[in-house]
């Protein structure tokens, strides 16, 4: 069997590990545009603030490719997939055949058109190691940095560079920070915490135009800056599949086995959609754990096994300047809110199930909540009052605990 994987991040690695669980003979080729050993993308902000380094941010050990007999073609870009001849073509015209193909091409930063943007000399996105290195090189202790986007990427970037520059202003169209994972109150708590670090926000605002090192904002204000970071969002990298005739909505459409509508072409990770079981909708869940598990599922199926990718939920663990946040699921339903000692908790239930939660500050044992969502555990089978108080196995029945801790099967 000849496996070809386009991409070299979490989904690709998940696929390799799954394939090798079933097939230690087949040929695996990884093709990726970036010329680096597999590294953890979310760690680029930790790299800039010195909490990791190039060695430690490798997602897998140095010997990963040789241990698993993978041929890495790094620094090579695929220009086309031909499902009829089952080949991929590289930009250097080389043609590589496949029996099973995984598209794990991730996503690319979205750069909205803005007047005068082409005149801005020091502008960066914040997705890759090259991005992080270029940004770091541009910064001086006197730099005034303007970040567009108060989402996960923009704010992690702000944290990463906060000790490397003089001032940071973050602008977002939304009325609150981290709108994709936090409710209003949660957002306010995190915002106040980040503001205490000297980072300034300008929300419900955007750039009307750039002119000579100044951003003129929609609300009439002008912000002078030296370095611009654009982190307004990402777009799934779907072109290869689309051009090959595959079905693409917002992300690449796959079935529960991660198969696209092209024969023997699978897709996983940030480029692909998956079923969010908390809402029942197909969406792109651009999160590293999901990328790994979707890739793993694709790899299993590519190697002749059978595995469904049917437990995907949105979930995030993230921290800013020592304040930890864990969230999962969706927030439509009945709310239980508890705020004390500077910590915030929201649990959302619907139809007798836990659908989502937000924890800020106190995040201990959050996975017990996550598991209730993923497993769709009926809340009438546990002591919900105890679970509301804190995540604990005491809330489960004795029989369930025997299974969880006592090794009782069934």
């Amino acid at each position, binding site marked *: 069997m000849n496996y070809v994987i386009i991409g070299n991040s*979490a989904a690709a690695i*998940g696929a390799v590990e799954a394939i090798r669980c079933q097939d230690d003979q087949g040929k695996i080729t990884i093709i990726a545009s970036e010329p680096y050993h597999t590294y*953890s993308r*979310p*760690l680029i902000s*930790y790299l800039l603030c010195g*909490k*990791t380094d190039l060695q*430690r*941010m*490798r*997602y*897998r*050990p140095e010997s990963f490719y040789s241990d698993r007999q993978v041929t890495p073609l790094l620094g090579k870009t695929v220009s086309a997939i031909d499902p009829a001849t089952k080949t991929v073509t590289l930009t250097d015209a080389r043609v590589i055949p496949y029996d099973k193909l995984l598209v794990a091409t991730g996503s690319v930063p979205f750069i909205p058109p803005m007047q005068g943007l082409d005149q801005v000399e020091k502008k960066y996105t914040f997705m890759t190691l090259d991005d992080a290195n270029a940004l770091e090189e541009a910064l001086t202790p006197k730099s005034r940095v303007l970040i567009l986007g108060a989402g996960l990427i923009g704010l992690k970037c702000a944290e990463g560079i906060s000790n490397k520059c003089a001032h940071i202003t973050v602008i977002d169209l939304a009325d609150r920070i981290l709108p994709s994972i936090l409710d209003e109150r949660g957002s306010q708590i995190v915002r106040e915490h980040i503001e205490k670090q000297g980072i300034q926000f300008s929300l419900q605002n955007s750039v009307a135009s750039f002119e000579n090192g100044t951003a003129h904002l929609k609300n009439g204000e002008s912000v002078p800056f030296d370095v611009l970071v654009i982190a307004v969002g990402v777009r799934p990298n779907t072109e290869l599949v689309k051009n090959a005739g595959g079905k693409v909505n917002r992300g690449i459409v796959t079935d529960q086995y991660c198969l696209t509508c092209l024969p023997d072409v699978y897709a996983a990770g940030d480029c692909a959609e998956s079923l969010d079981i908390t809402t029942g909708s197909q969406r792109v869940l651009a999160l*590293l*754990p999901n990328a*790994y*598990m979707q890739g*793993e599922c694709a790899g299993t199926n590519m190697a002749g096994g059978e595995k469904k990718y049917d437990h995907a939920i949105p*979930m*995030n*663990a*993230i*921290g800013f300047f020592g304040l*930890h946040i*864990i969230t*999962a699921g969706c927030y439509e339903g009945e709310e239980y809110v508890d705020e004390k000692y500077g910590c915030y908790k929201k649990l959302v239930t619907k139809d007798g199930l836990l659908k989502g939660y937000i924890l800020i500050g106190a*995040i*201990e*044992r*959050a*996975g*017990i909540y*996550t*598991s209730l969502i993923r*497993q769709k555990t009926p809340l009438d089978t546990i002591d919900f009052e*105890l679970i509301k108080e804190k*995540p*604990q*196995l*005491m809330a489960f029945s*004795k029989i369930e*605990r*025997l299974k*969880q*801790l*006592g*090794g009782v099967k069934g």
Partner: protein
Amino acid sequence: MKRIYVNEKWCLGCHLCEYYCAFANSGSDDMVKALKDITIHPRIKIEERQGISFAVSCRHCEEPLCVKSCITGALTIHDGVITIDSDKCVGCYTCILSCPYGAVMPSGSGAIQKCELCVKNSFGTPACVQGCPNKAIVYEERA
């Protein structure tokens, strides 16, 4: 493989497992010196309420969500034992988000900590099991 199993009927709620865990991972060979006047941060924790108590520690799952979710590759599984490379861990807590048992926790050093079945310390076999006076925690091979 051998795993830790808990029989809550026999748990006295004495918390000795927590102390043995903290001692085993302290690097000290003197339990008194290791634990005197400190707040312990054990990797096994007792839950107790209304006369019921039981110890919770890593289950070393066959399909470990913490390992699959780890954004750095710091959590790995070898021969069924899940261990943390605390040098690699950046403390993002995605594993805490993922663990269905609540058995992964912050360590105070920035990295996370979890039960590693004492494979990395001088005990070699789980200290909590040795320290349990009522055999409520056992380390066994079961089919």
